[in-house]
C-alpha cells in the first residue's frame, strides 16, 4: 500500500545568495542549513560538457543568396558544403538535392557536432511547384529515423539526433513582398520545423526600404497564418514572452555574410568591402547578423532544440501512430486518407509503409490490462 502525501513546501536554506556558476566551490562549510541540492546544476553542466551537443541547421533558398557564406560567418569557420567539397560544382542542379555535412567543433571546452544541411536546387527550376516536398520528406525522414530508434527493444544509450532543429529560409531582397514560393514553403514547413526567415544580401536595401520590407513580410506571415520561430504559442512564461516579443518585432533579420576580414578603425572585423564603404557584418548599425547569431547560438539554441524535440517531433509521432492504427484497423488496405509516403526511397530505409511498433506496443499493453 502506498500512501502518497500531498506536496508540502519547505524552504530549507536561510542563505539565498546566488551560488557561483562554474566550478562548485564549497562556500558553505559551516553553514549548518546547507544541504547541497543546488550542486546538481554543476553536475548537470559537467555531464553536458562530457556528452557534447548536437545541432542540425538547414539552409534553404535560391542559389546565389549567400547561404554558404552566412553559415560560415555564423560559425566562424568553413562549415558549409562548398567550403569542404574539393571541387565545388558551380552548376545549378536539375532537381533539388539535399546535402548534409557534419563537423566537430569546440569552444571553451564545449564540444558540438554541427550538421549543416544544404538544399541546392531549391527555387531554381522553371517550374517550382512542390519544391518543398523533398525538403519536407527529408525532415520527416529524420523524425522517422529517430522514432524507429526510440521504439527499438535494445535502444542506444543516446539516440543520435539527426532531426533538423532549425531551418533558415533566405528571402531575396526584392524590397516588395514575399513571393508565392516563399509563402508556400514557409506555410507548409513551419508546421514541421522551426523556421527562421532572413532577408539575404541585405546590403542592397537602405534602412527605410529594409524596414518597409520587414513590415510587409511580417504582415504577410500573419495573414497566411505562418508561425515562424519563436512561435507565440510556445512561450513559457511572461518573461519568455517579453523576450520573444522583442525578437518577433525584428524578424526577419536582414543579414549580410562575409568570411573576409578587413581593417576598420584599427580593428580586424568581418566585412564586405565596396567602393562606397565597408559593411561591417557584426555591426548592428549595418545589418542584423549579430541578432541572428545571438538568437540561434548564444541564447536560444537549447530552446530551438527543445521545441524540435518536444513539439515538432511529438506531432510527427502522434500522426504516425494514428496512421498506423488506421492501417491496422483497415487491415493494411491502402487508405487514401493517409498521406502517401512513397516519394522515392532513402538508402538503408525500410519500405515506406513501415509503421512503427509503438501503436502495437501500446495496443498490446492495453490488451494486457
Amino acid at each position, binding site marked *: 500500500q502506498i500512501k502518497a502525501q500531498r506536496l508540502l513546501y519547505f524552504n530549507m536554506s536561510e542563505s539565498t545568495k546566488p551560488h557561483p556558476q562554474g566550478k562548485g566551490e564549497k562556500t558553505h562549510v559551516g553553514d549548518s542549513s546547507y544541504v547541497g541540492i543546488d550542486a546538481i546544476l554543476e553536475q548537470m553542466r559537467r555531464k553536458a560538457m562530457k556528452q557534447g551537443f548536437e545541432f542540425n541547421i538547414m539552409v534553404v533558398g535560391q542559389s546565389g543568396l549567400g547561404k554558404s557564406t552566412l553559415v560560415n560567418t555564423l560559425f566562424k569557420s568553413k562549415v558549409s558544403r562548398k567550403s569542404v567539397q574539393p571541387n565545388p560544382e558551380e552548376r545549378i542542379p536539375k532537381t533539388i538535392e539535399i546535402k548534409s555535412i557534419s563537423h566537430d567543433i569546440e569552444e571553451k571546452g564545449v564540444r*558540438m557536432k554541427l550538421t549543416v544541411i544544404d538544399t541546392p536546387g531549391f527555387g531554381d527550376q522553371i517550374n517550382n511547384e512542390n519544391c518543398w516536398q523533398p525538403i519536407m520528406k527529408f525532415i520527416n525522414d529524420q523524425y522517422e529515423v529517430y522514432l524507429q530508434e526510440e521504439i527499438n527493444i535494445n535502444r542506444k544509450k543516446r539516440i543520435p539526433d539527426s532531426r533538423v532543429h532549425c531551418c533558415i529560409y533566405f528571402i531575396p531582397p526584392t524590397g516588395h513582398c514575399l513571393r508565392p514560393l516563399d509563402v508556400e514553403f514557409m506555410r507548409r514547413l513551419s508546421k514541421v520545423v522551426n523556421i527562421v526567415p532572413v532577408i539575404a544580401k541585405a546590403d542592397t536595401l537602405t534602412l527605410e526600404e529594409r524596414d518597409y520590407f520587414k513590415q510587409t513580410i511580417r504582415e504577410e506571415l500573419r495573414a497566411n497564418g505562418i508561425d515562424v520561430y519563436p512561435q507565440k504559442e510556445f512561450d513559457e512564461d511572461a518573461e519568455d514572452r517579453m523576450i520573444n516579443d522583442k525578437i518577433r518585432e525584428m524578424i526577419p533579420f536582414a543579414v549580410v555574410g562575409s568570411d573576409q576580414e578587413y581593417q576598420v578603425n584599427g580593428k580586424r572585423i568581418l566585412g564586405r568591402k565596396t567602393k562606397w564603404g565597408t559593411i561591417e557584418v557584426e555591426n548592428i548599425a549595418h545589418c542584423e547578423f549579430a541578432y541572428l547569431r545571438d538568437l540561434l547560438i548564444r541564447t536560444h539554441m537549447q530552446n530551438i532544440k527543445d521545441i524540435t524535440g518536444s513539439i515538432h517531433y511529438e506531432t510527427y509521432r502522434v500522426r504516425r501512430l494514428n496512421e498506423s492504427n488506421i492501417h491496422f484497423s483497415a487491415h493494411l488496405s491502402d487508405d487514401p486518407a493517409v498521406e502517401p509516403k512513397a516519394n522515392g526511397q532513402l538508402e538503408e530505409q525500410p519500405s515506406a509503409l513501415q509503421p512503427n511498433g509503438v501503436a502495437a506496443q501500446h495496443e498490446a499493453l492495453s490488451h494486457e490490462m
Partner: protein
Amino acid sequence: MKIIQFFTPKHTCAAVTNIQFDKGVRPLSLAGHVGFDSLPDQLVNKSICQGFCFNILCIGETGIGKSTLMDTLFNTNFENFESSHFEPQVKLRAQTYDLQESNVRLRLTVVNTVGFGDQMNKQESYQPVVDYIDRQFESYLQEELKIKRSLHNYHDSRVHACLYFISPSGHSLKSLDLVTMKKLDSKVNIIPVIAKADTISKSELHKFKIKIMSELVSNGVQIYQFPLDDETVAKVNTTMNGHLPFAVVGSTEEVSVGNKMVKARQYPWGVVQVENENHCDFVKLREMLICVNMEDLREQTHTRHYELYRRCKLEEMGFKDTDPECKPVSLQQTYEAKRQEFLVELQKREDEMRQMFVQRVKEKEAELKDAERELQGRFEQLKRLHADEKAALEEKKRLFEDDQSSFSKRRAAAQLLQAQSLTANGKKDKDRKK
C-alpha cells in the same frame, strides 16, 4: 532526389552512438568567438525552470533510523509516523515534498518500508519493494508508449537511489539483507549504510565494513559504485567508494558544542556529532548522494535500470528487434504475427468450447436416458412385487377361508353332536322318570 552525406575529410564522425572526436586529428578550429559555449548555461537555465525530481527509497527494519536520517540529510522535518512492529506484511509509504535551495527546486519523494524485518516469516519481505519499483517503471513505460505523451511534464517517480540500512550488529550481514539486496541490485542503485553507527567502536566498524563488502562481493550483489569517468570527481569518488558502506548517525536535535549548536546525540559519556567526520560518515553520505552524484544516480536509473525493465517487459510481450536469422524484424510483422496467433488461438478456444458444450449435452442426455431406464426397471420390479404379494395374499385368504369353512363345519358338527347328546340325555332322563 538524392540524399548525399558528406563528412569532413579530417574526421570520420558518422551518425554513431556518441559524439566522438578522433584522437590525434585536429578538430575544425573556429576563427573567432562563436558563442555556443553558452550552451551548458542554456541547458542549466532550462532545468532550473523545469525543476528537478529525486526519489529515494529507504529499506530497513522498523526503528533503525530511516526517517531520522532523511530529516538530517535534508535539514527539515518530514511528517513522520512511528510504525508499529506488528505489521502483518511489509508495506511502503511514499511521501512527496517540494524543496527549494537558492534557485533550485527539487521534488523529493521519500519512500520508506514499513514493517520490514518484523514478520516471523520474512521470505516474502522483499516482494512489496520489488513490486513498488516495478510499478514506477511500468508507469513511466506507459507514459512513454502513449500516443499523446508529455514526458517533460511527467512526474518521474522511478526510484533513483535505494539506501539500505544495515543493522549495527558488528558481525555480518543478515540473510534477509543479502536476499533483499540481491533481488534489488538489477533494479535500483543500492547504497548500503550502517545505521546507528554510534553503537559500534571504531575498530569494530572497520572490521564490520570489510566483512560486509566481502559478503556482498561473494554473493554477487552489485551495489552502486560512484562513477569514475569524469576526472573532476573521479578522485573523490574513488576515495568514497573505499569507505562504503557509510556508517551514519542521524539526529535533528541540536547540542551546544564549543560555542556552536550542532546536530548531535547527547550521551552521558559524550556527544556524537553528526557532521563531524571523525564521528561518523554522515557528511560523506550527503556529499556523495546529493552534492556530487545526484545527476549520475538519475542517469543510471534511466539508462540502465529502466532500459533493462523496458527491454524485459517488451520481450515478454513477444516483441523482438531481430528474428531467429538475425535479420531486423519490423514490429509490424511481429504484431501481425502475434495478432494472427491470437486470432487463431481465439478460434481454437471457441471451437473447443463448442465441442465441450456438445459433449456435455450428449452426456446429459445419456444420463437422463439411463435414469429413465432405471426408473422403468424399478417400476416393473415394484409391479411384480405387488403382484407377488397380491397372489400371496390371495392364497392366504383362500387358506383362511378354507380354514374358516372347515371350522364352521366342525362347529356345526360339534353343535349337532352336542344337541344330539343333550336330547339323548333328556330322553334317558325321561325314560328313568317313567
